């Protein structure tokens, strides 16, 4: 989140703030009418990245729930392990492909947001 978001904050130009202040805007108005609308695409992009991150979390989920919550990555883990159920590694592979499909949507959203963000940068 910080990695993706930092360039966006750095891209906010001082002139914009000065311009809005000289037109009589308070800093609250500046953020509401200028800052946040410009940062909005970056928010969306970061959201998609975080979604992808949360969607694929394995270690944290496993450590905290000890496998009691049926999350897709954990199911894949048990299937591929072959500890509990054998001969189901193919199902695990299929689920992994399914995760990539979902991730593709997140990726499309991220690219769209990046495109929008680039509008204010040169």
């Amino acid at each position: 989140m910080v990695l993706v978001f930092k360039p966006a904050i750095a891209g906010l130009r001082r002139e914009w703030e000065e311009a809005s202040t000289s037109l009589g805007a308070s800093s609250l108005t500046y953020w509401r009418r200028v800052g946040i609308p410009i940062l909005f695409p970056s928010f969306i992009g970061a959201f998609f990245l975080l979604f992808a991150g949360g969607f694929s979390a394995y270690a944290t989920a496993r450590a905290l729930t000890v496998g009691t919550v049926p999350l897709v990555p954990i199911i894949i883990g048990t299937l591929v392990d072959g500890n509990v159920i054998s001969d189901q590694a193919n199902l695990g592979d299929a689920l992994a492909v399914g995760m990539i499909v979902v991730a593709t949507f997140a990726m499309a959203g991220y690219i769209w947001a990046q495109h929008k963000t680039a509008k204010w940068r040169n």
Partner: protein
Amino acid sequence: MKKFSLKWPLIIIASSFAVLTFVVPLYGAALYSFRGDSGKGHSWVNYQWLIHADGFYLNLFTSLKLAVLAGVLNLVLMVPTMVYLNLKGQNFKSLIDFLCILPLIIPVVSLAIGAQVAMPEFLQNSEYELVFFFVIIALPYTYRALDTSLQTVALKTLVEASRSLGASWIRTIIRVIVPAIRGGITGALFLTFALSIGEYTITSLLHWETFPTWTVVAAQQNILGAIAISVFSFVGAIALLSIIALFSKKGARQVEVDE
């Protein structure tokens, strides 16, 4: 007109959030890790258990070895790439940027399963295959760290000066560019190293044994010991990072003196 400033409220909110999510749990963990036998009093007993536990040094060594290799390989791969992208390859930059963010988006579980089959066979049978996975996972962070620092130096001038004085490309990169972007390189190294040391998902799915996977197994025998392990790894990581940061700062100062 009185200017309403958001600065202080924001700083207070952000730092109290940081304290709540990082410091309080860690403090609690540290308190528990110093509990004595059967949870009474305070002592080093859990840390002694940790040091004498089976496989502690072995797995710690494996993890450190793999992390160092991953950090080095990552820099060898990414520093020339990023220099090229910032000098001549502007057209490819967005493509590489996209490729480097893929490891964040593609679920690690899928990556582990798919890439394991794709690895050459001689690598599949050695623990060094993990190095390549670690490099892949660290790509998004390395890319950004190196890119930001490369944009702050006058890359073109530096390269032209060094080339016109007769230095080869390799020499230019090692003697001119690397010292100039030392901060970015240390950052990239940090991130790769930290990620590799703590990587659990891929390691456990591919059935290798490193420090994190050993930790999970060892934790099942002794819960206070497990807490001691996490405090130990956290403090160890922070200490390591501060040492590297200190060294890199010293180096940077030296470059200034040399000029």
